[in-house]
């Protein structure tokens, strides 16, 4: 949950003109906006192989040879992957990390503060770096990546046994493991996928394949007692040391906890399980029948299902409500507690709950323009670009961030006046 208490929640509007940006630079890339809405930024081309970042009209102090993946951290710092003289690193508010690398990619951001990690290649060896500091250990390859929720621990699926491509029998003996903070488990697996770090940052879980046919979950290198024909990503309980993961048995998917079946109702598909913030409830995206998609809560699917897909499920902060997006043909729906809004959209973003769960807003796209919808009402600001709405800590106001006619707007609106 973003802590926006220190933000400016006075009702009103701020504007940042962007109309001159295109004239000042070779080109201007997609803009990004800080969570508090105070800053708008974009990568800009300043010459041949020369790039900078324009923030509220001002550029960083120096150019780089290349800049990509510009994003704001929750604390308001602006980050990007930058290249200088053939080496790569991360720049934060224009200042590069002290360490440079052969290449950096796959940035990960902490949820609530200012930590950032990247995958690193140096001299064709691989590791991760967190806030500028690389692991002490390097590996022949690194594939899947994780950053703990608190932003202080990193993990990756790493190749610990050298095997040339083509050595299929050696590969099947197990050449991969998982590393937390650079230290790999003692055990090896054929494959390691989709790692997750416990909320306290002390434990690591991952999907593993023990042979070409036997899948299970490993926690800190120890596998569950049972194997399955397939598994999906594990999730830690927010307060207890339990791990839940979808497992496939007999052609159907069920939810298991610590190796035991938790939801015995079989589904054609089951994934993206999540705990409520207090850990008392579990929701997951499921297919109760072939080609029908919905959300199940504690094993019980919503009555209404959808044809194409269901995605972006989320609990309200109080854990009482669940929102999701559903798609049928080319229409997207915002669905709350199993009931879709009457409005449909060309695209929709994950629903955002007010702190008390009473109100729900979502960024949407319709006819090539963007807007925010609140409680199934379309807002008055139809614009060229928009970002996710954010409720004030008291839930009585909503922060809108959008661009229209080359001007960025930060607008705080009382929830009760939203649709006026």
């Amino acid at each position: 949950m973003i802590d926006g208490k220190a933000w400016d929640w006075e009702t009103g509007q701020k504007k940042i003109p962007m109309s001159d940006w295109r004239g000042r630079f070779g080109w201007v890339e997609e803009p990004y906006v800080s969570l508090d809405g105070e800053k708008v930024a974009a990568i800009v081309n300043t010459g041949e192989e020369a790039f900078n970042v324009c923030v509220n009209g001002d550029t960083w102090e120096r150019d780089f040879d290349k800049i990509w993946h510009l994003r704001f951290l929750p604390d308001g710092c602006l980050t990007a992957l930058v290249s200088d003289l053939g080496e790569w690193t991360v720049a934060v508010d224009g200042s590069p990390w002290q360490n440079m690398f052969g290449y950096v990619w796959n940035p990960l951001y902490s949820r609530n503060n200012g930590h950032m990690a990247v995958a690193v290649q140096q001299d064709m060896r691989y590791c991760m770096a967190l806030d500028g500091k690389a692991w002490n250990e390097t590996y022949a390859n690194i594939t899947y990546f994780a950053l703990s929720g608190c932003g202080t621990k990193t993990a990756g699926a790493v190749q610990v046994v050298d095997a040339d491509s083509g050595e299929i029998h050696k590969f099947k003996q197990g050449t991969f493991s998982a590393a937390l903070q650079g230290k790999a488990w003692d055990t090896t697996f054929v494959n390691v996928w989709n790692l997750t770090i416990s909320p306290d940052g002390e434990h690591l879980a991952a999907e593993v394949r023990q042979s070409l046919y036997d899948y299970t979950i490993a926690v800190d290198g120890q596998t569950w007692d049972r194997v399955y024909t397939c598994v999906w990503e594990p999730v830690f309980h927010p307060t207890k040391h339990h791990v839940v993961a979808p497992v496939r048995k007999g052609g159907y998917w069920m939810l298991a906890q610590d190796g035991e079946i938790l939801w015995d109702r079989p589904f054609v598909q089951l994934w993206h399980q999540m705990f409520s913030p207090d850990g008392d409830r579990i929701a997951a995206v499921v297919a109760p029948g072939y080609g029908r998609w919905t959300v199940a809560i504690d094993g019980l699917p919503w009555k209404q299902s959808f044809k194409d897909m269901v995605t972006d499920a989320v609990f309200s902060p109080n854990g009482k409500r669940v929102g999701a997006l559903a798609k049928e043909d080319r229409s997207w729906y915002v669905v709350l507690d199993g009931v879709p809004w009457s409005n449909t959209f060309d695209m929709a973003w994950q629903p955002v709950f007010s702190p008390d769960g009473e109100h729900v807003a979502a960024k949407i796209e319709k006819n090539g323009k963007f807007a925010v919808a609140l409680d199934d009402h379309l807002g008055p600001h139809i614009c060229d670009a928009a970002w996710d709405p954010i409720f004030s800590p008291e839930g009585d106001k909503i922060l809108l961030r959008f661009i229209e006619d080359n001007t960025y707007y930060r607008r705080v609106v009382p929830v009760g006046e939203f649709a006026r």
Partner: protein
Amino acid sequence: MTEAAKKETPKGLDQGIEVGASSLTGEKIEGVIKSVLDNETGARLKTYVDTCIHCGLCSEACHYYLSHDNDPRYSPVGKVKQTMWEMLRKKGKVSPEFIKKAAVISHTECNLCKRCAMYCPFGIDIAYIMSVVRRIIHRLGVTPLYIQDTAHSHAVTMNQMWVKGDEWPDTLQWQEEEAQDEIPCLRIPLDKEGADIMYSVIAPEPKFQAQLIYQAAVIMDVAGVNWTMPSGIGWDNSDMAMFTGDNELMGRIKRTHYETASRLKVKRIVMGECGHAFRSVYDMGNRWLGWREPPIPIVHAIDFYYELIKSGKIKIAKKYDQPVTLHDPCNVVRGGGLHEKARYVIRAICEELIEMHPNREHNYCCAAGGGVINCGPPYKMTRVHGNKIKAEQLFAAKAKGAKTLVTPCHNCHSGLEDIVHHYEVGLGLKFISDILYEVMEKP
């Protein structure tokens, strides 16, 4: 893969098959066959097996059969007889030697091209039966080495060529820079959330054919498309696990692809000129996951070029002046119905199209698809000799004046290169995008 690791192996000494078969027991073979037949096939296989009247009308459909002087061992029904029927007749009690032979037949002498399904009076999908054989081969661990290695690559990297995580975005940035020499403001936008289109390719493009990414970027830029490419996994739409029978891995690959597009909030996925990947994303992989249809619309390059030209977003400056002939890839034509759109595109960008015969959904397979070319050098001549009929078809098109062979599919392209070279057909090969890039109006 290094040369040391992958030496040319005489047929029958594929180390994937030999080493895998060395640990087989009769009990294991019987158990796996029974498990697959009882738990994974259901009414579909039973219906096909019970319906077939052994008439042999499927034979004339198969390029292997036609290329081997009508040898019945190469007929589709002959291949089923040598594999699945024997497994059924003996209730799974078959020998390791039989399994080795079944691995070679199902993986290297059948392209799963489905031409035979059109010739069967009952429409029996023999490719499905051969896919079940491959599933059994996978479960027994006897898959040919090269394609098994490709499946391992998918499992580790989610792409088929062991392209590492850094190599992918680095290649895109390199191609972006190259293209900026031609169009200074051109971009390959990475991870652009909310773009209309995610463009996905297969791993040979960043590995060996980066110019295709360059060409795609130019086409997107000139057409004014709001597009993006993912910088992380999910960029590769290919899927050799579909052809090794590793269905669980196939599902994982397709989930990654679609969820990458979903995360980027795109409305459509446009894919490059690949055939088997199209089959995987619109038919096989999505359905294994429970999606009846692709959850996000998937558009093959042929369809996309058609849309761009028809709408006037791409204009042709000067048509390609060499007469061309068009190879209809099985997966996008017999499987996807894109043959007339392909012809619209070819006629729009080329002065003259000389049809090869048969064509459209009746076209002969390239003999590379279905994972056969991915079984590697040990079987190169199996597919080249097994497609003499294709060489004859190409010679006939050449005799009518064709100079260039257009193949809008990667596997077809590579396979037909071998055919053209071995039989000295004397045709140049191109993708549609090679020509489109060459003839389109650019700023």
